[in-house]
């Protein structure tokens, strides 16, 4: 085994940018403004360049990191998540007087952890990557130290997250006990021999791993932390963690369950089926009654996790491609929506109630239009990207014979339209005497949102090329 380093170049670029951000902060004079986010952009662009070069090469490093097209597609999604998150973070960091160096460093380290999680082919490395990502995100959640809500959110997230990590680790331990290895390919070959008559240990390992992953992707009933964490964290951080964490966790979920535990599919598909149904239904139904936009989007994000689980349980080529495309469109859309929320926050008011959006069209037509695009895409209206993504997921489910899940998915999508449209109606049609007073929009953040909106419409109208990439990604492995 010659330890080729190629496969880890993207995450190494991002981690190096994180270290650079830390060092830059150390040299910053108090009160001095320094373009630390720019370092992150450089690192992410380097990672993007490496990702393009690695495409189709199936590079592998140390035998535990595999830059196959599947991992690279998710890496690309994570690079977009990172760039957009850096883009919308500026106003939040300025206004809240957050420690800029540490904020960006943690965001970049978390991104590197996510990339590793998406490309790792060893349970031990997946766990370490998960922890790198999670620790950084816990701290980012609580980075507004003078806000009790932020601290409470971080504490809840940390405690429950640590608990879930323990479950995940326990699952890995049982798997190791069964297979004598943590590499996914070796586990797969062992499981293939045991598929006919699984021992209780296998069920135990599977169950513990499902709980661990279920927590990270906020699947019902492991979703309790989500609304509090998403509401308490600064909106820019929420944008980052609601998309990046989900993308990385789903990538690892798909890789572990559709490669290592593929021979046992008959034994775990029922469990994931129920998780998917419960997640879609609860995310949607509870989302309807929320009056806080951040909580509403948190439940919406839980619901979207349910659609991704549908694609996972379908497990056919169509479904795997659908996971990748869905993650990409969901990431761009959700960052956009939370970006608008971030821009509406003022030092005095959070402006995160649905009623705060009344008359936004008259005050800030640009923001209202952007928010409309994001919400319509989340709801799955054509011609936005969300429509194509959902359509692919549901057709994958029908092709795999999970018509019941597809019906639940369509019904919950229809219900979810209610709460997305409620905000749109507020913005355009509800007159108000006290319109929201939002500060001037910084150029970079505004530009980031416009780019996201353009991407969403582009992916909605001309999805073929990206769908081809997604299809090519899954053909190389599995």
């Amino acid at each position, binding site marked *: 085994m010659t*330890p080729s380093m190629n496969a*880890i170049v993207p995450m190494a670029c991002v*981690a190096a940018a994180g*270290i650079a951000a*830390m060092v830059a902060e150390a040299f910053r004079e*108090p*009160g001095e403004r320094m373009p630390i986010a720019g370092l992150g952009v450089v690192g992410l662009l380097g990672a993007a360049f490496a990702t393009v070069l690695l495409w189709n090469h199936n590079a592998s*490093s*140390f035998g*535990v*990191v595999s830059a196959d097209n599947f991992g690279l597609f998710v890496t690309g999604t994570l690079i977009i998540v990172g760039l957009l998150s850096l883009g919308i973070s500026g106003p939040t960091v300025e206004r809240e*007087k957050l*420690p800029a160096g*540490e904020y960006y*460093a*943690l965001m970049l*380290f*978390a991104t*590197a*952890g996510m990339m*590793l999680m998406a490309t790792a082919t*060893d349970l*031990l*490395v997946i766990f*370490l*990557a998960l*922890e*790198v990502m999670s*620790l*950084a995100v*816990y*701290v980012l959640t*609580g*980075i507004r*130290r003078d806000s009790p809500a932020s601290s409470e959110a971080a504490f809840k997230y940390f405690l429950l997250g640590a608990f879930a990590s323990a479950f995940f680790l326990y699952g890995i331990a049982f798997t190791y006990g069964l297979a004598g290895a943590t590499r996914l390919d070796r586990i797969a070959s062992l499981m293939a021999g045991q598929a006919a008559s699984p021992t209780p240990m296998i069920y135990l390992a599977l169950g513990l791993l499902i709980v661990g992953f279920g927590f990270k992707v906020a699947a019902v009933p492991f979703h309790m932390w989500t609304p509090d964490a998403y509401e308490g964290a600064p909106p820019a951080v929420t944008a980052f963690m609601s998309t990046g964490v989900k993308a990385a966790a789903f990538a690892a979920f798909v890789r572990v369950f559709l490669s290592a535990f593929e021979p046992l599919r008959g034994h775990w598909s029922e469990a994931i089926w129920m998780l998917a149904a419960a997640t879609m239904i609860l995310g949607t139904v509870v989302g309807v009654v929320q009056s806080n936009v951040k909580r509403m989007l948190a439940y919406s994000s839980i619901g979207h996790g349910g659609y991704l689980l549908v694609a996972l349980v379908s497990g056919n080529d169509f479904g795997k491609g659908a996971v990748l495309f869905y993650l990409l469109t969901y990431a761009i859309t959700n960052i956009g929506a939370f970006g608008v929320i971030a821009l509406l926050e003022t*030092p*005095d008011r959070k402006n995160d109630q649905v009623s705060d959006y009344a008359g936004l069209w008259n005050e800030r037509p640009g923001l209202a239009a952007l928010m409309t695009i994001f919400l319509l895409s989340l709801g799955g209206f054509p011609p936005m990207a969300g429509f194509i993504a959902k359509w692919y997921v549901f057709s994958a489910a029908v092709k795999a014979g999970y018509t019941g899940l597809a019906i639940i998915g369509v019904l919950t999508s229809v219900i979810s339209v209610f709460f997305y449209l409620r905000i749109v109606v507020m913005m355009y049609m509800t007159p108000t005497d006290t319109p929201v007073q939002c500060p001037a929009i910084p150029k970079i953040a505004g530009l980031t949102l416009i780019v996201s909106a353009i991407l969403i419409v582009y992916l909605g109208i001309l999805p073929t090329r990206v769908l081809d990439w997604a299809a090519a990604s899954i053909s190389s492995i599995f």
Partner: protein
Amino acid sequence: MGSEALAFYAFGAVAIAASLLVIAQRNPIYSVLLLIASFGALSGLYVLLDAPFVAVIQIIVYAGAIMVLFLFVVMLLNAPHEETEYDERVHPLLRPGPMRFGACLALVLAIELWWALARGVDTGAFPGGAVTSVAVIGRSLFTDYAFAFEVTSILILVAMVGAVVLARRDDPRERRKPGER
């Protein structure tokens, strides 16, 4: 009686005595310190069992890291004495709540031990010696698991940065002006 048996009885006696004293103390600080003594004696037993790696880990992780954590918590809570909710004359162990809970846990442990010992120890699955040698563990850590080892360094870096962000004092020169939220 050979010197090994002598060492076994010595370590065993210290471990049992220290453990008993842990639960018999009124002062939590003494309890914590006695627990360290108990862990130290246990690690001596591990050495006798030809498991030097476990012995060292026992000292570093349990007696070192975890006990320091305990000590910090006890000191931060500023509780030199346990809450005297009940009659002072009744010994802590004899008060209803903790006693019942502790008794349940002890019972579970006793049943588990009895069950495990009654089944006999099947060592066939674990070839002795192979994984206990420090040299073997070290070699595999820096070859097979070299990448995982490096990722751990990033993990610790993140934890350190995170701890500093959450715990550091605000720089007065960058502090908000009064009135600003």
